[in-house]
């Protein structure tokens, strides 16, 4: 009668029977990328958090409680129980678990050796991406390189940040040789390339203030002649800045690593975070947007989040990047071209780069959750400016004609601006304008120690340079809260 009790788990796949074919192994790799692209069901992602935390954006939305995690981020009223910490933490460790598990399986998988090493290199790079975010956001984090023993789940302790950085350097250094310089965009666009891993390694060095090593990596990514095609990987700044935000321009020559989004994942409200559509596209849309005149932009009405502050608008207003960056709803309404409803703390300046368009509406599925614009994790203008940063702070020559000068001004020349000298203030301003709304500014400000500009939002330099570790991680475990948040680490 024991046999009677054997129920065929037809709806389950046993781990022991899996990872036997190339398709199965690849599906394991895909699951790590899934964590890389994972957005929160409460309709936000890392970019949204970083934007709202910065001095460039208001949370906006429908009111002071709408997407509460973003609202408390904006006002720095977050704590270990509310705010975006849980999303950032669990996203990272979910990806690390999948990468660790994958790496433990891929070694013995009966598939082609070359594929195996490429797959492993991708997994290691992704693991480094997860750790890089975690260590920057939470500083004191557990460093896990294999599955946690189920019996010792509560015994995990935090590593020193330096140990985490060392592991990232190791993972990336091991991965770089096994990664392809380019991938066919049509079929493999979005996969990790050599350039992506090098750029990431450069950032890992830069955040540790290892300026020379950082500059060395960025130089490999950026190429010998700033502004010209890098023959090693084909990277080149796009001629037209606005083309970066054309949704059909995926995997362009400026793109180093992007989070791939699609209109066809059929995401639904029951688990919005699992959609592979771009949630920024809907949350940044102006509330109740209605075109009046035919020349009105074809914005898809959304939830009115991530509006720019008036102060930021004043800074970018006369920059050539203004139009591709800021959707000036204030002007559209005043001129009777289009109408919309105010967001909370409305300014009338919305995030043009990400607003969903009628013409890009998904053909199937829940419209709001299935816009298909990719999000740049790393792009060439970013690594140009980071190399400038490394050179400048590393004490390299930065005068006219220097490499740093050429890099900085290649970014400016692309949008038709005259050269400027390489100074910290010029670099800070250039990054702010070039990368506006893309989630870089807060991390830059914290790295530079220039957080005083955030004070008006409630930023407290004695605690807000790191995020509070979520309360759930502390309950019954050996994890200690960061001292900035009243803990001991």
């Amino acid at each position: 009668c024991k046999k009677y009790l054997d129920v065929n788990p037809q709806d389950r796949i046993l781990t022991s029977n899996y990872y036997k074919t190339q398709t199965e192994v690849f599906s394991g790799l895909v699951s790590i990328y899934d964590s890389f692209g994972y957005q929160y069901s409460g309709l936000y992602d890392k970019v949204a958090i970083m934007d709202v935390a910065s001095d460039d954006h208001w949370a906006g939305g429908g009111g002071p409680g709408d997407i509460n995690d973003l609202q408390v981020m904006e006002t720095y009223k977050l704590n270990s129980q509310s705010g975006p910490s849980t999303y950032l933490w669990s996203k990272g460790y979910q990806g690390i678990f999948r990468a660790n598990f994958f790496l433990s399986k891929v070694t013995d998988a009966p598939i082609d050796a070359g594929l195996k090493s490429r797959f492993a290199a991708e997994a290691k790079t992704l693991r480094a991406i997860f750790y890089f975010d975690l260590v920057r956001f939470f500083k004191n984090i557990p460093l896990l390189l294999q599955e946690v023993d189920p019996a010792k789940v509560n015994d995990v302790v935090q590593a020193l940040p330096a140990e985490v950085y060392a592991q990232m350097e190791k993972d990336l250094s091991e991965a770089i040789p096994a990664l392809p310089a380019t991938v066919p965009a049509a079929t493999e666009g979005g996969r990790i390339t050599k350039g992506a891993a090098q750029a990431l390694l450069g950032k890992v060095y830069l955040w540790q203030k290892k300026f020379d090593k950082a500059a060395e990596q960025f130089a490999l990514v950026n190429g010998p002649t700033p502004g010209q095609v890098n023959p090693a990987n084909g990277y080149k700044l796009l001629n037209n800045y606005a083309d970066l935000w054309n949704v059909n321009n995926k995997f362009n020559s400026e793109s180093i690593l992007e989070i791939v989004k699609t209109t066809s994942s059929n995401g639904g409200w029951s688990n919005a975070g699992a959609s592979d559509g771009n949630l920024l596209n809907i949350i940044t849309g102006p509330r109740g947007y209605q075109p009046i005149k035919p020349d009105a932009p074809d914005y898809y009405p959304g939830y009115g989040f991530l509006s720019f502050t008036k102060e930021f608008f004043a800074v970018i207003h006369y920059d050539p990047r203004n139009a591709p960056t800021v959707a000036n709803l204030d002007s559209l309404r005043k001129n009777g071209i289009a109408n919309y409803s105010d967001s909370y703390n409305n300014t009338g300046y919305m995030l043009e780069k990400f607003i969903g368009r009628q013409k890009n509406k998904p053909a199937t599925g829940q419209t709001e959750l299935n816009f298909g614009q990719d999000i740049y994790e790393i792009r060439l203008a970013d690594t140009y400016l980071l190399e400038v940063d490394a050179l400048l702070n590393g004490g390299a020559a930065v005068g006219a004609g220097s490499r740093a000068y050429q890099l900085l001004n290649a970014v400016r020349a692309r949008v038709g601006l005259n050269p400027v000298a390489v100074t910290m203030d010029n670099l800070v301003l250039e990054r702010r304008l070039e990368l506006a709304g893309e989630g870089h500014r807060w991390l830059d400000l914290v790295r530079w120690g220039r957080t005083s500009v955030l004070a008006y939002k409630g930023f407290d330099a004695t605690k807000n340079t790191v995020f509070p570790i979520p309360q759930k991680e502390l309950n019954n475990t050996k994890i200690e809260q960061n001292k900035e948040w009243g803990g001991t680490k």
Partner: protein
Amino acid sequence: QDITVKGTVTDQKNGIPIPGVTVKALGSSKGTLTDVSGNFVIAVPQGTKLTFSQLGMVSQTVTVSSSAAIRIALSEDSKALGEVVVVGYGTQKKSVVTGAISGVKAADLENQPVNRIEQALQGRTSGLTIAATSGQPGSASTVRLRGVTSFGENSNNKNNPLWVVDGVVIDNGGIGYLNQSDIESIEVLKDAAAAAIYGARSASGVILVTTKKGKEGTLTINYSGYYGTQAPAKKLDLLNASQYADVINRAFAAGLKNGGQPLPFPNPSALGQGTDWQSVIFNNDARKQNHEVSISGGNEKSTFYTSAGYNLMDGIVATPISKWNRANVRLNSTHKIRKWWTIGENLGYSHTVNSGIGAVNREFGGPLSSAINLSPTMPIVETNPALLGQLPYTNANVVRDANGNPYGIPASGFQEMTNPLAYIQTRLGNYNWDHNIVGNAFVELEPLKGLRIRSTIGTKLAFYGNDAFSPLAYFSTTASTPRSTFRRELNYSIAYNLENTISYTRDFNKHNVTLLLGQGNYKDGYSRQLVTTYFDIPATDFNSANMRFKPIEANKTTSGDEGTEHKVNSFFSRVQYNYDEKYLLTALIRRDGSSRFGPNHKFGYFPSVSAGWVPTREDFFPKNNIVNTLKIRGSYGVTGNDVIGDFAYVATVGSGRNYPFGTAGNVIIGYSPEASPNPNLKWEETKQTDIGIDATLFNDFTLTADWYKKKTTGILQTPPTPDYVGSGSPARNLGDMQNTGFELELGYRKQIGQIRFGISGNASWLKNEVTKLAPDVNFIETDGASFQNMGTITRTQPGHSFNEFYGYQNLGLFQSQAEIDNYKGPKGTVLQPNAKPGDIKFANLNGDETIDVNDRTFLGSPIPKFTYGFTINLGYKNFDLVAFGSGVAGNKIFQGLRRLDIANANYQTKILNSWTPSNTNTNIPRLAVDDPNENYKKFSSLYLENGDFFRLRTLQIGYTLPKATVEKLKLQKLRIYVLTENLFTITKYSGYDPELGVGPDAGSGGAFSIDRGAYPQARTFLIGINVGF
């Protein structure tokens, strides 16, 4: 030559006249019934034999010799159902039962207008906590037997008792097919001694339902029906438009960011009453009706009971989309093929069609929540031409009323909230349906007297699904349906059980022994689902939508699903012994294997033993009029719970971890491991001790009292895995929980002259305590209830009951800045620097320098500690009155009716008493739009209210027509009655209804008493009729 014979039939035991006794002349068609006073008159020839028969009584036959009055005293038939208790795989004389079993009989259920069978038990037996989850017609109630038996993931399913209908195992959701008029009796097996015969599925208790059977010798045709109207029992006092504008202005002015800006409502008093959204969606005349015809009868070879019923109920909220109706057919019959060979079947079929308002007891999206939270300044229908020419009213998809006027559109900031009338209009016609066939067929052989061999095959076959059309709609800036969809869902599921038993009963002198051996195979969980959605078909409403439109492939989606089979394989045996009905003993053991158990624990053994002593049958017991009968009984046993998830003991990979590569954006399916496996996974085990007495006192009182202690060990716990693990950890048998309780059932019956009086009541005290969690785990909140942005509001921790409310302690309001400045931590830090006078002072319970999550504490339990119910029966001549009420005490309710994430959501009028510098004598904190002190955003005792209530559930007055009139109408019986449900509820609770079962949404964590805008119970007035032909 006929002579007229008069007479009276009484109960031999107490001399009370018995109405409704069948008096039949043998050899002729003549017959009559006794009236309410037990009297009869019949004209028959001299020498005729008259038989007197009544269910539960031993029939008597007398020969008419003269016209002298005949006095008949019928004695109780100990073999009849009235004195026999169904105990699982058999019946037992009530006088020798040693388990704790409470029962409800058909007579108690008659004319109670419930449409789900569990509601018929509410308040009627001790040990059961039953609470409606929703007033939505046809909604299941939450049923807990002797407290919460288990906790953790899936706790709602785990704690549902096992329902067994005529021997067929049915899950809690599945018993909705039963028609209460078909119920003969319901037995609640409360202690382990009674329940352990159902082994690994009995830990949360077992409820046995027996349907009516035909009876030899009589052909009975009955019709019963009622018709009536329902209305909401209560409306909330919400702010009207001008009050609302005042309050919003007040909150706005107190906001930090908004200093100097103009108020949102410059002239509140000009707004007047505004819209009363509750009146818009409430229906004060929702219909309810029921009709049922049954025919039963039989001869010495065959008996049958067959019935057909139709039940219809409209909801009191948003009636056009809140309806329920059910049709039932039943056929039960038995056939004696040979003297030793019987076959038969019990078959029920039901078909239900219903529609629901969608979000039930959920704060998001439903029309009830909208009615509570929408601004009263918003019009039902917008008619102002100036506004109609502008956005948003110029949107092509605005929803319009029958006159073509657009329904009012909520202002920006009301999130996904919709005008409830627009919402109703876009859901018109959508419905759910099901067909259920539940039944069994059996063969029983009796080769020797007392030896019965029985085989039963039972099945539950269900087909269910729904059709829904969503037209293009624009509700607000944040809620719209940009593409129309037509969605059809089809499901079917099959469960079966096969059972074979042998029983042998024998008396040796005064020794009575019954032995039972049995074997069973069970399978359920097999289900198949298909869902198809068509987009953009050329239909404008539900009636014009159909699947004959063939959209292009891109406008079609299909998905499917299937359940995991669950199999159980069992052996069981039981011995029941008594000596002269004086010394009683029952012992049993069941062995269950379940497909859910890990390979290291494939089979579980569930034994129980119970014993009783009846001192009143001892010779030495003095004959007296105080204690007429007394039985003392005790039991101990082990039961199990196998609701522990499927395949939790093997390592599996899960899908849905997808990612798109390449320019085409094709999604590639990703797989990664689920939680790691636990091969040691086994059932949860519940050990229960019960000590009880059954007594008859002073001739008229009956009393049953039970004390029990029930301890569940090995409760499945997924130790709350920190997220750094990256995946779930496996569930393990780690937790313990204990319930102790005391139960009392009392009855009293008396007739004084023409007045008949009876009262029966029950009361249950319960203490629930979690005693152990996983090692190193001090508490769990992961399975708790959560509310909006507050996060988890309950905590399960040893020493406390399951999912107690857990939040900040509210020390009252700050009255001055000085109080705020002086409220310091031990090192002198001001604890609430953002506070202003009128804000809540939160207790600094951990004594540090900040008020934070570590200052939260237990604020009360959602589980009632005391539940009670009583029924009063009064009769006078042909009139009868039944009053039935029940209540609970000792729990708290979380009142979460207002949306916290909508700054401009409406309030109940008690907010008018919020703190202002001129109104300081209040406990309602000041209003400020950004709420910097988080008075309203933090979960504190501010949100908890006392959950005590008493409800008069039904009050019924009936009139039975006098015999002479009935005979003229050529009928056997005719009774008419009027009935009211929920006539009143005594409670201090400020929401609609204090009766709140476990919410159907995922955020309830299995906790009772959380009100997110639960659909309230209706107050009903009905008239009904019972006719016997």
